């Protein structure tokens, strides 16, 4: 079973490579067409035109665009994404240093979105036909319309500023050490046995993760509700009722299992979108992940870094979507190929 799953995922990931190549080529072209000269930017402003020209040759910028792309691609395949112009460090290592924080945030947000989505979906379904249904419906539409950027700001205002319950800047309180073992702060703080750091990291993670989770839960909520509606048209629900099972048992024991599948697929697709949504909440909460690195790179027009981060986001989203697709096939017996 596991072997087939792995085989499926690998096959799908291989199929995603052409898309990735096109995406990276597009990214490369867009960034090269910009009116920004990476050679001039990596030299001090006093550099002469000859020095800039020499730097351009050294960086390979005098070669035709397709050749430049191939050089960049072969470097990238060897793990070399070039050097950040502004930060003067390897772009690859900068990405590697910030990616774990972003993944941690995205995972927490996904768990929160799933829990809220499940609870909300069941509640919406439970309210069907009651007087509260139009109200719940309107509320879910309103919730659906608030993007993570606004949730981030609203939560920051309410819990950070007005009630002063939660910290809203950085990933731990100032003064606490930040361990670097795996890069995942929650894990690292436990590994070194510092529960105060762990607690502080959790506190700092809550608002950004909830903001992101809130933005994505309504979609899950509404899909769960509509798939529950579909499931309740099936005969086995009526049969279960005839067997004298309680409504609660039917809902949780029979209907939910069958309604979970479409919801799960959607949750997976959402996870891809959610991952790129981390950029905005990271920005709002000054959370030191890849999103803030990207925004800094963009502000400095730091092309090698933008390229590396942009590609990383695309790869992660592509991988998530591919894995979810494969899992869907595995979980759904109807789609299983013999």
């Amino acid at each position, binding site marked *: 079973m596991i072997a087939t799953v792995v085989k499926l995922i690998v096959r799908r990931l291989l199929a995603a490579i052409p898309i990735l190549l096109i995406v990276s080529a597009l990214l490369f072209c867009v960034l090269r067409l910009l009116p920004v000269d990476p050679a001039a930017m990596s030299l001090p402003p006093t550099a002469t035109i000859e020095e800039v020209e020499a730097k351009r040759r050294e960086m390979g910028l005098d070669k035709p665009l397709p050749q430049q792309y191939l050089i960049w691609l072969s470097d990238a395949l060897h793990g070399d994404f070039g050097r950040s112009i502004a930060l003067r460090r390897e772009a690859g290592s900068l990405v590697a240093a910030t990616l774990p924080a972003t993944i941690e945030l995205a995972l927490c947000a996904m768990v929160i979105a799933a829990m809220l989505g499940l609870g909300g979906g069941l509640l919406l379904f439970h309210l069907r036909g009651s007087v509260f249904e139009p109200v719940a419906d309107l509320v879910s539409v309103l919730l659906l319309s608030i993007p993570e*950027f*606004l949730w981030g*700001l609203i939560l920051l*205002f309410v819990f950070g*500023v007005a009630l002063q319950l939660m910290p809203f800047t950085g990933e731990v309180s100032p003064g606490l050490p930040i361990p670097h073992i795996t890069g995942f702060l929650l894990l690292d703080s436990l590994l070194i046995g510092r529960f105060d750091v762990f607690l502080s990291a959790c506190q700092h993670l809550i608002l950004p993760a909830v903001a992101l989770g809130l933005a994505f839960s309504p979609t899950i909520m509404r899909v769960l509700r509509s798939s529950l509606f579909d499931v309740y048209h099936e005969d086995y629900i009526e049969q279960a009722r005839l067997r004298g099972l309680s409504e609660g048992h039917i809902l949780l024991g029979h209907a939910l299992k069958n309604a979970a599948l479409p919801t799960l697929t959607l949750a997976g697709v959402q996870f891809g979108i959610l991952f790129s949504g981390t950029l905005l909440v990271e*920005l709002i909460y000054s959370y030191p992940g890849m999103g803030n690195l990207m925004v800094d790179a963009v502000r400095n027009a730091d092309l090698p870094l933008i390229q590396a981060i942009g590609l990383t986001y695309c790869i992660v989203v592509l991988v998530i979507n591919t894995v979810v697709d494969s899992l869907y096939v595995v979980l759904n017996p109807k789609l299983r190929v013999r």
Partner: protein
Amino acid sequence: MPAILRSLRSPRVLIALGMILGIACCAVFASSLAPHDPGDQNLLSILTPPAWADGGDPNYPLGTDSLGRCVLSRLIYGARTAMLVALFASLGAMIVGSILAHVSGYFGGAVDWIIGRMVDVWMSFPPVILSLILMVGLGVGLDKVILAIVLVDWTRFCRVLRSEVLIVTRHDYVAAARLLGFTHWQTIVREVLPATLPLLITLISLEMAIAVVVEAILSFVGLGVGADQPAWGQMIADARQYVYQSPWNLLLPILAIFLTVTAFNLLGDGLRRTLDVRLAETGR
């Protein structure tokens, strides 16, 4: 268009239109509504609270920001920026996306394949990342923000509309139009477009909400409209730094964005129901 008129009876649509009309009025009559010039700095009274709070100045009904600029005036002028972006970005994305969708769905075959793959590649870029990268190249400015949103969001229209066009094109009356000697262009404009119009209108109102948020995000990052042009995102970025001194400055632009986005989404939802448009639940 009776269906459109019918949708005016829906309370959702009416409430939403009322809200949008209010915001649009702020945008259009900004120069006469705003008590001050939004760029005027009064460094003698910075970060004053709203007029009703302790230490408030009746001269500045909603207080001032970190440079002593009138918050109310900046909010009103910010509405102008937001509405301009919402209007032109969604129209632009609609034009590009729907032309490609109609061509793709109507002709099918190789054209459809090429446009379909283009949409796939485009959509594998997360929208936020793509718009940030585009802004690096385009530089700041209202027109650049609009262009960036059009370049990112045409796919939303293209993908949803294409499947609708595909369904409409299979109807007998489209074939009948071709048999009557209509050119392809005439068939698309006179027979297909009217059938896809309800979906198009719904999508535009949803896209307007997205455009308002994207503009706020880009201005928040400092890559939106120029620094001389007031925008809600800028106000938030500014207030974020002085959040303890003047929480109002943070709350007010958040509220402004919230109300605008809610209004457009409520309109979209109301239109979707009354025009009976099939839209995927994931259509964020």
